[in-house]
């Protein structure tokens, strides 16, 4: 089987988020970059599925050249191939992004690579639009389940589950399909040293989709009121354990058995 995982390079933010003076971006002076925890699970799931069923995995991102860092991170975990839809740094809105991804998928199809599964994170870690996966499915006319936390593939069929407030929803569908994944689907692995070094040497396929106006314009970013933290020392030695348990119970962090 062939799997495509789409990811987005985002700042690894700290407790306190600062904006650039023009309020157009997060100030990343002190920050590293990463992908969302949802996408990490999608990458992990793709690696596991290919390990189990054979085939090939591809990771794709739409972004500036520096986004190859995140592609290589995914390859370090076992993804076979990477595609960078290279932008000039301008931000693409969800409609345009989905369009760009669809184009790339169609180009792969024309070259003989058909995806059985296309996976996204449930939402990106920065703009959290929840849109790309659904839009790509819609344009490609594929079934789509969002927010999945369990996935089993059996031949051309997939069984998925997602968690709602009232319990688990289950779905069975035939592949090809699009899934957006939620953190908790699996426990992603860490990159091994050989994985990291292998990924460094792998080629990255660069495609240059033309910028398009999706119709959505970012006016500016605004920070919500950031919660301040208060630290209270409960004590210094082992006796503090009792207080700690009481506190956890009060905060309903402990399940009563």
């Amino acid at each position, binding site marked *: 089987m062939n799997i495509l995982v789409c990811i987005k390079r985002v700042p690894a933010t700290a407790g306190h988020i600062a904006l650039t003076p023009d309020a157009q971006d997060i100030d990343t002076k002190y920050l590293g970059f990463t992908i969302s925890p949802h996408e990490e699970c999608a990458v992990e799931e793709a690696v596991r599925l290919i390990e189990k069923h054979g085939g090939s995995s591809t990771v794709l991102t739409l972004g500036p050249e520096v986004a190859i860092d995140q592609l290589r991170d995914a390859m370090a975990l076992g993804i076979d191939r990477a595609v960078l839809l290279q932008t000039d740094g301008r931000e693409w809105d969800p409609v345009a992004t989905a369009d760009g991804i669809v184009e790339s998928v169609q180009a792969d199809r024309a070259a003989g690579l058909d995806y059985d599964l296309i996976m996204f994170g449930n939402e990106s870690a920065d703009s959290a639009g929840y849109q790309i996966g659904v839009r790509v499915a819609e344009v490609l006319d594929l079934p789509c389940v969002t927010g999945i936390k369990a996935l089993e593939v059996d031949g051309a069929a997939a069984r998925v589950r997602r968690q709602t407030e009232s319990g688990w929803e289950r779905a069975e569908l035939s592949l090809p399909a699009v899934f957006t994944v939620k953190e908790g689907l699996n426990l992603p692995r*860490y990159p*091994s040293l050989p*994985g990291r070094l292998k990924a460094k040497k792998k080629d990255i396929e660069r495609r240059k989709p033309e910028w398009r106006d999706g119709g959505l314009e970012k006016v500016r970013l605004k920070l919500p009121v950031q919660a301040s933290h208060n630290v209270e020392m409960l004590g210094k030695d082992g006796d503090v354990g009792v207080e700690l348990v009481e506190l956890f119970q009060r905060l309903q962090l402990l399940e009563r058995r």
Partner: protein
Amino acid sequence: MSSLPSQARVVVIGAGIVGNSMAYHLAMQGWKEIVLIDKGRMPNPGGSTGHASNFIFLTDHSKEMTAFTLDSVRQYKELGVFTQSGGIEVARTSQRMEELQRRMASSKAWGIDAQLVSPAEVKELVPFINEQVILGGFSTPGIGTVDSLRGGTLMREKAEAMGALTVVPQTEVTGITVENGRVRGVRTDKGEIAADVVVISCGIWSPRIARMAGASIPLSPAVHQMISVGPVPLFAGTVGEIKYPIVRDMDTNGYERQHGGDMEVGSYDHRPILWDPDDIPSIEQSKLSPTELPFTKEDFDESLEHALELMPDILGDPNVGIRHAINGLLSLTPDGFPLLGETPEVKGLWSVAAIWIKEAPGIARCMAEWMTSGIPEIDPSGSDVARFYDHQKTKAHVQGRSAEGFNKTYGIVHPREQWESNRRLRLSPFYEREKALGAFFFETAGWERPHWYESNRKLLAEYGERVMPRRYEWDSRWWSPIINAEHLAMRDRVAMVDLSAFAVFDITGTCALDTMQNLCVVQMNVPVGRVIYTSLLNSAAGIKADLTVMRLGPNHFRVVTGGADGPRDKKWFLDHLPEDGAVQLTDLTSSWATIGVWGPRARDLVTSITDADVSNEGFPFGTCRFIDIGPVRALASRISYVGELGWEIYVPFEQGVRLWDAIWQAGQPHGIVPAGIGVYGTTGRIEKCYRAYGMELEQEFNLVETGLARPQVKPQDFIGKEAYLKQRAEAPAAM
């Protein structure tokens, strides 16, 4: 946690391993009302201590640093936070194997148990190592790791339990109050605290804090990359944090250190990544901590390959993952040594910075002793923050040298190795002449000093085997047989030596004699025109400095000391001037250039260029006076660091070339050679048994031990006299 007191005996800023150790040792020295403040929270306020790899290798070629380290290990053991694991420096090259032999020599000299071991023996100690890629190792069983956060906490709590310490976390320093060059207090976001003594132990932030007081702590924050890889199956079930010896892969500038179930891999191999202290993120702006910056993995790729090659069984396991990776910040200094002592800019403001985990408690004890009695057991002179000239405190210098020094962390550094960055800064007036003669320049305190002259290469044929060629590459590195040829020519004929790097300062004023008597061991009440070589002692009669003094007038003494010692000696003098301003110190280092003219033909030469009487009777040894050399009025001093016969000739800086040319031309019939510092600082002085500060002389030794005790002790009081008299009455501990 307490609120901020309004006054303190001493404020210690920064609660990393250094600040906590300082609080403890000050308390142990009897200090009360110690206040320890930090911007962060206890026990890990976010500085470099919090992410340190915490292992301690014992041997350093520097005696001072090794002494600090050994004392620290002793203290960590007492605190119960030291785990002995052993450690091995492995060699991949034959050059490194030679260096490891030199490590053995240093280990033996400092009393550290260590062995050179074969690859097979390394494999026995470290079963997961690929012994195929190494040639051997230098194994030190006493190496281990510490829990520095716990150690710091314990020391802090001990000081609190003694009733000596108040700890005030989450308090940001906003200013330091200085009046008349003296520290008076610390301003914070929680209020002001009055104190006459302030200790800056702020690690990478120290320059920022010092600047608030108008002082310099010249260090640069720099990245040291570190990853943690696991879970390592072999380490499963390890009790405590470490079982296997720590490995330093010296030739690739990396290390591997077990930490529980993980292996930490660290590197000093990547490009130097320096930060400005003002650019470091705040605690809130940081994902992890201000000193744990986002990992830049492309910088680490090569280190990964080296690590994988050395430990493929562990690190090549596809199930062993990189679980943690940081660009950790640490402090680098222009010469690699810590920054210790009272700042020369502000009285009462002490720097305790640029210190690693391995040496922190030892340094803190030394500093507390220094702050209390002025006589630390371990001599910290090499790390004295007062050792820098102003140019060495500039950002350009600090960053240039720090960047250059970073990749030398595990390097094979020759003792004579020269820095490459920020050269050609202090040039004597003779520089162009020297360059034309093919001078090979070494640097001292920014000065370019000829070490030997290629123009003298022709002397090699003249002296043949007498130049004692060095056949072993290491010995002959940063050396030339020409040095010995210059030496012989000086002994046979006459040589001229550029000594402009001397630090020169005048002590003047109505009470100048009293000040000089108080500071110097030798009688200073001598006739005007006398030159005196003297030692300066601390109150325990450890040797603080040695230098020469010319009495130029009843109230006028000119002090001449080594270029490298200048700033430290100057601070010692300034610290002991009377408070009423009756004595002044004027720094003339940049005003006077100096040429030494020595050799059996020196008198003939000087006679030919001056009308002054320079006969032995007319200008005896140990005297000085102004003489006219053509249109140049120069101060000639009949004294020598290379033996008789000759003069140091001091000339106003701008007239230097005229003096050089006069001596050079007059010297031709006498076969004059220009001689470098290779002769002056090494062969010449050693042949005459003249000691050098920092080499044979240091605070740990006394005058009796160094053979510098004179038959008589002057009747006047001087610093260290009481202890000196006692030393004279006892058998020396060493000779």
